[in-house]
């Protein structure tokens, strides 16, 4: 856990309280999209609230996916998505989208194939 676990309810934040009830993020962010703290985020003075501080710390070292942020903060995925999207819009975070492997006929297959080959050799090295 990232935050102290001493809250009597055991729950970090009330879902949707931190997002003021919004359920729709400004950006669609994939589960596996990687999130990175920017220099502006690291600077600290632009942060609005405890959750933002937690996310900035979490993503300041190695990159974390949206799913990891939600899991480590113990908030539902939708809540994490709204928080991250807002912070990305404020330049506090950078979001690296995954390389999707959709089989759309129009998709650029060479990009996916190169990545698959990298995944394959990475797995063989494990």
């Amino acid at each position, binding site marked *: 856990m990232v935050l102290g676990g001493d809250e009597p309810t055991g729950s970090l934040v009330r*879902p*949707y309280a931190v997002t*003021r*009830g*919004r*359920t*729709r993020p400004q950006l669609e962010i*994939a*589960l*596996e*999209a*990687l999130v*990175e703290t920017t220099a502006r985020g690291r600077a600290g003075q632009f942060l609005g609230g405890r959750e933002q501080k937690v996310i900035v710390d979490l993503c300041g070292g190695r*990159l974390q*996916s949206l*799913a*990891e942020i*939600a*899991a*480590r903060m113990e908030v*539902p*995925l*939708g809540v994490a998505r709204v928080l991250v999207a807002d912070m990305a819009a404020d330049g506090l975070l*950078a979001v*690296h*989208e*995954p*390389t*999707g*492997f*959709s*089989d759309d006929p129009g998709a650029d*297959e060479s990009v*996916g*194939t190169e*990545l*698959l*080959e*990298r*995944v*394959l050799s*990475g*797995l*063989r090295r*494990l």
Partner: protein
Amino acid sequence: MNSPADTSRVTSAKIVIAGGFGVGKTTLVGSVSEITPLTTEAIMTSASEGVDDNNLVPDKATTTVAMDFGRITIDQDLILYLFGTPGQTRFWFMWDELVRGAIGAIVLVDTRRLADCFSVIDFFEHRKLPYLVAVNCFDGKQMHDLQDIRDALQVSQDVPLMYTDARNRESTKQVLIKLVEYVLSMRRTRTVGVG
């Protein structure tokens, strides 16, 4: 080469681990993941459609679905995630998001409860997501002929089918490698077919 500070080419990919209740999905993810599998929850509210940006979400019926996942750093700029599907297939809303953009899926089966994976296989075929079938040997023995299992599941000869031990890192690694090789071979076939 990227310098460590240049993260502009950073990206990620995912593989879905599916199968019936208690078939060993979390065990499989944990056997190769560099982190202890994490769990995240998605909440679906029936009211979420059309909720105004500034309105509070009213207390409507909600469904919570938990899924777990692991992580494998392939390179400093490429991270692979393994997502275990929720045990119950009735939560299809989460499955859409899980499979979107995935490399492919591993369907874990338990020969004592083969039928548990029927709906999962139907779903992947419908979505045209490449998958392979991995038979988890709970009894430690490979008691069944793979062709019999293939017939029972009614999957085509092209779909890779193999035994695995979800607890074993090397075994899981071979299953993942097989899946990626299969996806690559499908792409090559298609390219040749078009050209």
